[in-house]
């Protein structure tokens, strides 16, 4: 081998400047910038839909949280009280006093109106009995001015937020065209104002003809009891099953089969779990219908695969060297898992559990079949244990029920219910983040 051949076989390294990008580098950089641009576009599209969704929900849902009230300062003297109590139509007498007072207020502001007691009833409900109850309970208020805030019917709300207009109004026993003149007059006189509708947060569902009185409180409680059942059952069962499958079970056909089936279960439509719940828990085990207990059991079935899959994934992510280390100092398999692997997998397990719970919280379809949708909960359960077995509704079921009602005033309530539901979901996600931070002590 001569020097010459050596030279031919091994060309001298090319000299190139670092200040000049070669073609390949340029191409790679371009590809990278393109990819970044796609990413940003994808995120912007996502954000756009998120903003549209949020704005729509908030705009449509806010009316559910406000309520038009008629604020009137009213004085009832002792004589008027005695007089009214001696009459045959006691509440009617109170109502007359009230109407007179209102006429006075309107007159003060130079507005003349004819009052039809029936119109007042349509707008404000049976105010006579409200007043009577107040004075019988608080005789001390007699003779001095008391400001009453009387909630107006939801049709009045609708008139103010544009859902009901003079052109589209269909005269009914709920609202007449002439009532709107009265509403305008009261509004001009400054007697109408918007107040926060606490009843929507704390109340129970109302009848189909009283959208104003509808509240989501009772179904929040129903959802709470369901989630309690889901958490108490699915977390221990799911985590125990995953630890067994991941760390202890022999790897054979049978465990493979179980594994495939768990993955399949996660993809089963939720309504299938609903009909399963109907057949097993209600028809076979005779558990009460519409009870949060049954709802919780059904949702547990639905949540278990999610929890098992995420728990197994986080157990798998723990490096095997940690297990070796524990076994190497003479720890048993169980000690290795519970002292070392599980704490490291905890953040993942909690995240999976809360995602599963959040999914269950928003689930409607399975509740349809066990009688929780369409059930009108008139009040809160009597006690803690009753909360599990007393028929109740759940948030998504309640929202569905409202949205399905023919009276458009319930439509606002459905949107408002969605806001409440989303607030709960956000709160759960927040808890997930906090827990993850606490457990994620990356050493």
């Amino acid at each position, binding site marked *: 081998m001569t020097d010459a051949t050596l030279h031919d076989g091994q060309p001298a390294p090319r000299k190139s400047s670092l200040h000049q990008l070669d073609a390949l580098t340029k191409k790679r950089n371009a590809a990278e910038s393109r990819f970044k641009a796609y990413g940003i576009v994808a995120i912007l599209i996502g954000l756009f839909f998120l903003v549209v969704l949020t704005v729509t929900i908030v705009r449509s849902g806010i009316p559910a949280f406000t309520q038009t009230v008629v604020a009137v300062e009213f004085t009832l003297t002792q004589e008027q009280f005695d007089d009214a109590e001696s009459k045959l139509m006691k509440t009617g007498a109170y109502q007359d006093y009230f109407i007179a007072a209102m006429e006075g207020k309107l007159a003060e502001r130079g507005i003349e109106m004819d009052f039809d007691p029936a119109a007042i009833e349509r707008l404000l409900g049976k105010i006579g009995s409200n007043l009577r109850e107040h004075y019988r309970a608080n005789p001390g208020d007699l003779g001095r001015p008391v400001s009453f805030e009387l909630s107006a019917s939801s049709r009045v709300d609708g008139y103010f937020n544009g859902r009901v207009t003079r052109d589209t109004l269909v005269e009914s026993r709920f609202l007449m065209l002439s009532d709107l003149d009265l509403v305008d007059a009261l509004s001009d006189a400054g007697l109408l104002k918007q107040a926060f509708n606490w009843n929507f947060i704390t109340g129970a569902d109302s009848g189909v003809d009283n959208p104003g009185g509808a509240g989501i409180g009772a179904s929040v409680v129903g959802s709470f009891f369901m989630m309690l059942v889901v958490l108490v059952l699915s977390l221990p069962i799911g985590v125990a099953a995953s630890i067994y499958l991941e760390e202890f079970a022999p*790897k054979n056909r049978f465990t493979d089969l179980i594994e495939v089936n768990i993955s399949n279960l996660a993809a089963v439509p939720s309504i299938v779990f609903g009909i399963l719940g109907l057949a097993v828990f209600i028809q076979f085990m005779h558990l009460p219908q519409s009870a949060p207990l049954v709802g919780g059991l059904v949702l547990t079935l639905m949540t278990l695969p999610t929890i098992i899959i995420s728990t197994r994934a986080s157990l798998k992510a723990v*490096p*095997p*060297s*940690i*297990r*070796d*280390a*524990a*076994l*190497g*100092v*003479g*720890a*048993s*398999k169980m*000690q290795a898992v519970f*002292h*070392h692997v599980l704490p*490291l997998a905890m953040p993942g397990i909690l995240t999976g559990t809360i995602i599963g719970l959040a999914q269950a919280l928003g689930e409607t379809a399975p509740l349809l079949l066990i009688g929780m949708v369409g059930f009108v909960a008139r009040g809160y359960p009597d006690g803690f244990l009753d909360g599990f077995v007393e028929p109740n509704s759940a948030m998504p079921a309640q929202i569905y029920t409202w949205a399905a009602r023919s009276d458009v005033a319930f439509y606002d309530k459905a949107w408002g219910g969605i806001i409440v539901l989303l607030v709960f979901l956000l709160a759960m996600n927040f808890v997930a983040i906090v827990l993850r931070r606490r457990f994620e*002590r*990356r*050493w």
Partner: protein
Amino acid sequence: MYDALHRQKEVDVNEIKIAARGVQVHYGDNHAIKDVDVDIEDKTVTAFIGPSGCGKSTFLRCLNRMNDTIPICRVEGSILLDGEDIYDKRVDPVQLRAKVGMVFQKPNPFPKSIYDNIAYGPRIHGMARNKAELDEIVERALRRGAIWEEVKDRLNAPGTGLSGGQQQRLCIARAIATEPEVLLMDEPCSALDPIATAQVEELIDELRENYSVVIVTHSMQQAARVSQRTAFFHLGNLVEFGDTSTIFTNPEDPRTESYITGRIG
């Protein structure tokens, strides 16, 4: 070239601690250990040497049944610890591993504090009756692991926050904290600087007074310095096994000779 040449090695035969007979290991279809017979003596350091992939770690892991954790791994033959077959059905591998401790090739401290890393073994074996005793065990183990001076002020700091070499010494300290009868060390010094290596070697020499130590190493010098017996593995076979001084000065097999003189490996 080798200290062994200059140092008079103790060659009297001690009691046999571990006797392996006809050991075969398969990873699925891969025949990793082929019919190996080895006697590991008590109060002796035995070195396993051989080229990468020849099965040193595999064989070492057979000695405390760490291979049980690998589903595809199949071990045949018999390994007797003090005359009892450790692969017997009646043997609980957990009990075995308390007697046969292990230091792994890659440092693997627990993601816990330095103190808890050491205290974990003694705790689960109930070796300390109170906190003071546990503190003492931890300090002794860290001192013997040649890391006490570096960590004594931060025992509550995470073990994973140490440097690679410190982590390895922590793992050694962790392994000896449980007072095993046999200590298996898989390349314990591969991440250590010469000073720490010398300290670990000193430790191994010290451990020899009471324990039996098996060390896998890629450093001929280290094998020559610390061990009394050496086993040379090649492609899953035990090629040669005998006194360290003999192996390094007068190997019988040509493969051994070419490996220790650096021609294969």
